């Protein structure tokens, strides 16, 4: 079936607008789109979106993570193998992380990472043909926010929720951060790490995030104040 932007799409549909746009200038095909000979076909169900000038993608629901380049993810170290760590990021196979890709690490000065540690890392290599590879430094060799996440609490959610939480328009984090202090790391692989002062606060943040999956912006705001008052009420 022929579809256009902002339509509900199913795999097998095709979009001529994209092809037409492609004739004039370069087009970026995001997730859920695939070019076959002369047509652009939809491969995932959801809503077809466009961002000016020429970026197209399908907003779809997904839980399973498929590694893609330059995304920040949260992983768990499952094995030390030679001079690399194997990290579970929720994809089809474990990702590798070299001992050397930590800030200031050399062959002699190895980073202190144990099996079971939670890491916030960046996808360096991710392609269907290769084993994904992570790094904990940026291109300047600085660690920035990447590295081992100590303490705190990790939970899983759908990939859509992660994108929603990270979206600049989403009021959730803005509302929550005014209520009480906490640390948060969001991995694009559907894992979220939270660290707050008390267990109660941690759970409150977690519930707030999980709760907002199907809520609108205004509902999120009211939910946040709700949680905050509940929490404050019990504390006092």
């Amino acid at each position, binding site marked *: 079936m022929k579809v256009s932007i902002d339509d509900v799409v199913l795999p097998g549909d095709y979009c001529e607008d994209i092809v037409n746009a492609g004739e004039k200038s370069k087009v970026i095909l995001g997730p859920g789109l695939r070019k076959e000979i002369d047509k652009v076909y939809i491969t995932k169900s959801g809503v077809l979106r466009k961002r000016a000038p020429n970026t197209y993608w399908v907003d779809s629901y997904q839980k399973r993570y498929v590694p893609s380049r330059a995304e920040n993810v949260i992983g768990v170290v499952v094995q030390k193998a*030679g001079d*690399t760590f194997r990290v579970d990021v929720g994809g089809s196979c474990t990702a*590798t992380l*070299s001992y050397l890709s930590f800030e200031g690490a050399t062959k002699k000065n190895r980073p202190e990472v144990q099996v079971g540690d939670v890491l916030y890392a960046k996808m360096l*290599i991710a392609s269907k*043909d*290769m*084993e994904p*590879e992570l790094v904990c430094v940026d291109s300047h060799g600085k660690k920035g926010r990447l590295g081992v996440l100590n303490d705190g609490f990790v939970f899983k959610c759908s990939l859509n929720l992660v994108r929603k939480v990270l979206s600049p328009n989403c009021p959730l984090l803005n509302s929550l951060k005014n209520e009480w202090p906490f640390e948060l790391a969001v991995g694009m692989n559907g894992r979220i790490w939270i660290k707050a002062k008390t267990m109660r606060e941690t759970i409150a943040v977690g519930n707030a995030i999980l709760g907002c999956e199907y809520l609108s912006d205004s509902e999120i705001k009211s939910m946040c104040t709700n949680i905050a008052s509940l929490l404050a009420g019990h504390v006092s």
Partner: protein
Amino acid sequence: MDKEIGKICIPGMRLSLSNKEFISGPGTYELKGYIYATLAGILKMEEDEKTKATIISVESPRTPSVLPKAGDIVTAKVTVVNSRLVQCMILCVGSSILVRPYKGVLKKEDIKSTDKDRIDPYKCFRPGDVILARVLPMTEIHWYHLSTAENELGVVIAVAEGSPQGISMVPISWSEMQCPKTLVKEPRKVARVIPENINQTMFKDSKESNKESIDVK
């Protein structure tokens, strides 16, 4: 027997004495001073250039059921690439085809002979590439260790990402190949630069390189 074919042998047939003049070759074995056949096939007698001895061998009408040996040149298809090694399926030994593919592994340090510290397997091979490699002595069960640290060895057929099926890239240097259709360039460990039409010349070349390498040996 049939004169056009030559002398027919069957397993266990005593072929000749085993001494300085007659040496047991492929398809034969030595026992108590005699050479016997192990295959059903045709007797071949060749003179070794150095020792002037006659090598007695039996040529079977089909590929003998033996496995790749250390030193053989094999054709293999890359299956897995990661930062430490390359895994592949061995498809042919020399010019003979294997019915069953065998697993081969190419360690990072065996990919190139120069610059061993800075080899990145991703920049040399991709899954799906067809490579020529030499078999190293077997040390592990079920895995043949391979090496491409020679000029004639490396990638012979590769398809660039996004290119249509069957359009192979053409080597443009010893470390790069280019798709003739999409003009995409990708890094590879190329097996010596082959001129223009790669598909037609590939087999001749691989055979030639086989011969050469055997001669060298």
